[in-house]
């Protein structure tokens, strides 16, 4: 119901919205929860396990009960706290975890079965038969219990991630935070002020007490405007600082446009990473309930929330209200609601010596509320005196206060434990819990408004002064300064179920049972009862639960300790944390200069690291990739093919000592290489295994260019840096990547020189450009580089031009190749060509093989040292029994040889210990007319000519194979020369 004359909502702006399909009206400034309460709706959700009817417990971010799904279809946002969701016109919301409806939830039979569903019930009940857990019990339990569900459709909303930087981060814009930001801002520091609420002010919006002679909300608005006018202050409302991390970094979650029907082009949410020199934590305190029988009825809420709903939004869950507390603060609720014209029928205070501070209301000192009545909404409470006499009082709303817990969660994110204060009966932040962060105000135990204002101002000033700003303490406005008197009461003893954790349905009895079953550590109790889990992370129940546990185990609260508060403070959607990373946003795309033409030629592109490369170039009439691949292989073997090889890493090394340096990096010798020549090299990791291979060309006496494989380009660059810094600091050379600077194309096949001679400004011949030669060339007046190297095994070249001419050169090369009976070839053909030739790639040099394994032992020069040489000689790394690189062909000449298959002896058992090796690469060789594979086989080099069984359990293949030399085509290399 609405309370006349109360609240700061704009009653001139009426907003229509729906809840479970029914239409309601609220006002601008309402939250969904306040609008529903204003419309007379108290029942907003069902509990997780027992499906108990629930209404809002709080008016803020700690809300355990009022979780709803907002929005429709793919844009539906489950588990939205109705207490945080700002109302907008047309907002559509539905309740969760009920069937068929919120009012009539058939799954509330769970509540009747409560005796069997107590703490740890699923550990005990569903033990056997064992196989039933995964297939039967767990799915059934999952369906019966839970919160909201995702739509299952791709999320169409835009999200954002961002970084921010400041001198002083102020977390929370209540009285302490506003003063901290003013003090630091006036000193000249760069300040960021975040508040999770849409409006600044914190408790000042929820109280009647004046600040500086004005209503707290008005004073807040004036300070907010003053801060907005400062250029060095950045205000971030709707932004929850969710985590404190190392080195002054903080995570924050901003609800940018969740309060609008249409976000337009703006992101709906943003996940911030804020780097702050200093931080002032002004997160305030969270009120805690007192547990009593059926204290979860809709209409029972925290006393401060009840008061806040009246002051800020002008709503209450009903006209007849009662208040139950163990402290003076609760009296304000009774006082304010009576002043607002509601019927306050009881102020119940558990302290027998309490004085009535609420004025003319029925006062029950030394009494407790022992039970709430009314299933779908509170209808009455039972008040019990010290003498055990009970009376039943009809009410529609009850405010409960068990005191206040400082919201110190962030101070525990780096591992610090909070400190128990006997005086406040609450945990306080440990000093220096987060380096550079200072708690101020209620979170530091300063519970009156005046002390918050003063503490915040001092903390803001100190933070700025710490950073060298000349900071003055701003004037502290006049405000309420009542001492917060309290006598502990966690739970009202009695029969029935008294709720501690509303979100996870944990009762006082559950915690006691955990203790009885010796789950006496607070961490064990948490896991056994599930107290403190789910979206609210037990903000309203943690302290109560551990106090009950302390009682039950005969320890005091500091001995019992708290569970560990971890980030995030409140839920952060994965969509916000992963903003921009959907689909192709996941990783950058690297495109070669021939990309657009390859795509235009119909080539399907495949990923190679971040690069995209063409897999084949289909021609008319080719219905399968194999047809295109076979044709491209034949083109290269018979005429000439063109392939973009720009993705290979290219590192230019310059200086007098490059040769000596390469001798350290490569297993074989490079210092003897003459200018104008290229050499193949193998490099090892320090542990003696093969890291990468490739060719290095000596362009001039002191200028070299190394090529790496596409996959290992970054790793090799890092490796070179390491070798230079750790092993060759005295050598004079410098190197830098030129991968992106050159577009490079393979021109391969018997007609390759013929093609080039039609293209180069000056023709070449075999004498001037023999196999493994390199040198500068001119193409249409553009200076390029030519290398006579071959991965295909044919007479072949690689030609490089500056990247801006890449597309143009590719076009010219392909056109000329086609005129000579050839054309472009892709990764599939490239792979077949190299398998036919027995060349290795990272399919073979996969990180676990040695030079010995791939038959390159003789490439480790005995005459010099190199990285990895010593460890490559370890016993076990050079044994004949090791799997060695071999070629394989099917005895029947046609069965495919799947990669990943394992090799076994021709006869005998097939078990893990009779495994002789595995297949690494495979393809159909059109040159030989049969499938070929490369693989590793124990003692393989001695087994050429033998028969082994290839077995692929995954694809159900078994093929008898002949073991061969890895080189199947042109073993003497005659085609490379001439």
């Amino acid at each position, binding site marked *: 119901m609405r309370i006349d004359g109360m609240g700061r909502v704009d009653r001139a702006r009426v907003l229509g919205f729906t809840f479970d399909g029914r239409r309601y009206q609220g006002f601008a400034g309402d939250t969904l929860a306040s609008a529903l309460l204003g419309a007379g709706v108290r029942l907003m959700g069902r509990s997780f396990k027992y499906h108990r009817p629930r209404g809002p417990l709080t008016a803020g971010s700690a809300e355990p009960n009022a979780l709803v799904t907002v929005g429709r279809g793919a844009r539906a946002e489950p588990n939205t706290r109705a207490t945080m969701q700002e109302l907008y016109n047309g907002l559509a919301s539905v309740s969760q975890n009920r069937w068929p409806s919120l009012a009539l939830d058939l799954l509330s039979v769970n509540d009747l079965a409560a005796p069997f569903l107590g703490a740890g019930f699923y550990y005990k009940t569903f033990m056997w038969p064992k196989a039933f857990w995964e297939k039967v019990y767990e799915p059934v339990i999952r369906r019966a219990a839970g919160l909201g569900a995702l739509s299952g459709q791709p999320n169409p909303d835009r999200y954002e991630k961002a970084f921010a930087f400041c001198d002083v981060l102020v977390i929370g814009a209540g009285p302490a935070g506003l003063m901290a930001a003013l003090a630091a801002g006036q000193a000249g520091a760069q300040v960021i002020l975040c508040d999770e609420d849409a409006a600044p002010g914190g408790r000042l919006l929820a109280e009647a007490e004046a600040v500086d002679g004005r209503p707290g909300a008005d004073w807040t608005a004036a300070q907010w405007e003053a801060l907005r006018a400062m250029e060095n202050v950045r205000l971030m409302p709707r932004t929850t600082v969710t985590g404190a991390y190392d080195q002054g970094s903080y995570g924050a979650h901003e609800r940018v446009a969740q309060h609008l029907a249409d976000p*337009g082009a703006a992101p709906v949410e943003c996940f911030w990473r804020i780097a702050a020199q200093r931080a002032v934590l002004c997160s305030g305190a969270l009120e805690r309930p007192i547990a009593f029988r059926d204290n979860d009825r809709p209409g029972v809420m925290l006393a401060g929330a009840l008061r806040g709903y009246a002051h800020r939004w002008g709503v209450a869950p009903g006209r007849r209200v009662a208040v139950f507390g163990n402290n003076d603060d609760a009296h304000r609720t009774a006082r304010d609601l009576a002043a607002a014209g509601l019927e306050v029928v009881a102020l119940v205070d558990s302290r027998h010596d309490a004085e009535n501070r609420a004025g003319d209301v029925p006062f029950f000192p030394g009494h407790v509320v022992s039970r709430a009545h009314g299933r779908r909404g509170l209808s009455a409470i039972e008040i019990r005196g010290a003498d055990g006499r009970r009376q039943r009082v009809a009410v529609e709303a009850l405010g409960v206060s068990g005191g206040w817990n400082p919201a110190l969660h962030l101070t525990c994110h780096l591992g610090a434990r909070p400190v128990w204060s006997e005086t406040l009966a609450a945990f306080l932040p440990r000093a220096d819990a987060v380096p550079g962060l200072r708690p101020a105000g209620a979170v530091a135990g300063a519970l009156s408004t005046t002390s918050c204002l003063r503490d915040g101002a001092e903390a803001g000033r100190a933070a700025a002064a710490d950073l060298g700003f000349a900071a003055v303490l701003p004037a502290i406005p006049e405000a309420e300064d009542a001492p917060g008197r309290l006598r502990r009461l966690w739970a009202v003893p009695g029969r029935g179920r008294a709720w501690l954790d509303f979100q996870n349905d944990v009762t006082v009895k559950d915690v006691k049972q955990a203790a009885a079953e010796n789950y006496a550590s607070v961490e064990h109790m948490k896991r056994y009862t599930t107290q403190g889990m789910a979206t609210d992370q037990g903000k309203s129940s943690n302290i109560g639960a551990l106090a009950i546990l302390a009682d039950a185990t005969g320890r005091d609260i500091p001995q019992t300790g708290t569970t560990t508060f971890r980030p995030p403070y409140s839920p952060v959607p994965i969509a916000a944390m992963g903003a*921009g990373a959907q689909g*192709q946003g996941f990783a950058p795309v690297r495109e070669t200069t021939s990309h657009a033409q390859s795509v235009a030629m119909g080539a399907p592109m495949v990923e190679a690291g*971040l690069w995209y490369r063409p897999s084949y170039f289909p021609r008319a009439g080719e219905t399968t990739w194999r047809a295109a691949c076979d044709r491209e292989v034949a083109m290269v073997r018979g005429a000439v093919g063109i392939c973009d090889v720009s993705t290979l890493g290219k590192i230019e090394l310059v200086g007098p000592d490059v040769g000596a340096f390469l001798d350290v990096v490569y297993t074989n010798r490079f210092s003897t290489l003459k200018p104008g020549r290229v050499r193949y090299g193998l490099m090892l990791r320090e542990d003696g295994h093969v890291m990468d291979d490739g060719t290095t060309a000596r362009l001039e006496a002191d200028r070299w260019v190394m090529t790496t494989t596409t996959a290992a380009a970054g790793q090799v660059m890092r490796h070179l840096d390491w070798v230079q810094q750790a092993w060759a600091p005295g050598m004079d050379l410098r190197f830098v990547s030129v991968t992106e*600077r050159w577009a490079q194309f393979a021109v391969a096949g018997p007609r390759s020189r013929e093609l080039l001679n039609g293209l180069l400004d000056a023709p070449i011949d075999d004498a001037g450009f023999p196999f493994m030669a390199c040198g500068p060339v001119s193409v249409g*007046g553009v200076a390029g580089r030519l290398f006579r190297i071959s991965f295909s095994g044919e007479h072949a070249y690689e030609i490089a031009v500056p990247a801006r*001419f890449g597309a*143009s050169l590719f076009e010219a090369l392909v056109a000329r190749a086609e005129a000579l009976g050839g054309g472009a070839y892709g990764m599939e053909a490239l792979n077949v060509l190299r398998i036919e030739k027995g060349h290795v790639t990272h399919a073979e040099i996969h990180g676990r093989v040695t030079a010995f394994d791939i038959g390159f032992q003789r490439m480790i020069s005995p005459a010099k040292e190199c990285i990895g040489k010593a460890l490559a000689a370890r016993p076990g790394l050079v044994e004949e029994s090791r799997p060695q690189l071999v070629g394989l062909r099917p005895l029947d000449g046609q069965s495919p040889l799947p990669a990943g298959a394992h090799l076994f002896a021709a006869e005998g058992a097939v078990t893990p210990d009779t495994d002789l090796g595995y297949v690494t690469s495979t393809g159909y060789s059109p040159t030989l007319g049969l499938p070929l594979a490369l693989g590793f086989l124990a003692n393989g080099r001695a087994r050429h000519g033998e028969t082994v069984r290839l077995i692929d359990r995954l694809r159900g293949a078994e093929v008898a194979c002949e073991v061969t030399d890895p080189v199947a085509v042109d073993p003497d290399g005659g085609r490379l020369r001439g």
Partner: protein
Amino acid sequence: MVELTAQTPWAALLPVTAGATGLSAWDPGPMTALMPYRGRRAALSEAMQAAHGLGFPDPGEVTAAPPLRCLWTGRGQAFLMGGPADPGLSAQAALVDQSDGWVALRLEGETAPEVLARLVPVDLRPAALPEGRTLRTLCGHMTVSITRAPEGLEILAFRSMAGTLVHEIADAMRLVAGRAVLG
């Protein structure tokens, strides 16, 4: 004789404008990596002064003698841009041509630092990155060089990633512009 034509990797992608920011390409001209040999930094700087009128930049710095600029780009490495490097410098330093290897973009407008704050984990506001300063950092997952020039923030990135770079910056520009509309 074949005629090769030069092409840019951003052909149809640029310029982009959204809200108060504009993203465009610019031509850095010839670009040479200068990497002084052991103990030759000072000698290189002197040789550069003599040949080009600018020195070798300290970490995070840019030296300039229009139309030439020299950008610090990493440990013992700087890029000379805007004209060819004097071959005589090769006595003091390794010289490697980097032209074509990098795309050069410029982000203009007051909210440019706000836009890049969506992608770059370093403070780029004028107080933190004034004119004449440069840094190496990440833009999303891409390694970049960012420099403040009078016209705006200049971004150098690998040529092959130009598409992703433009796409990601343009996305961030649209989100920031979308926020501005919210007020």
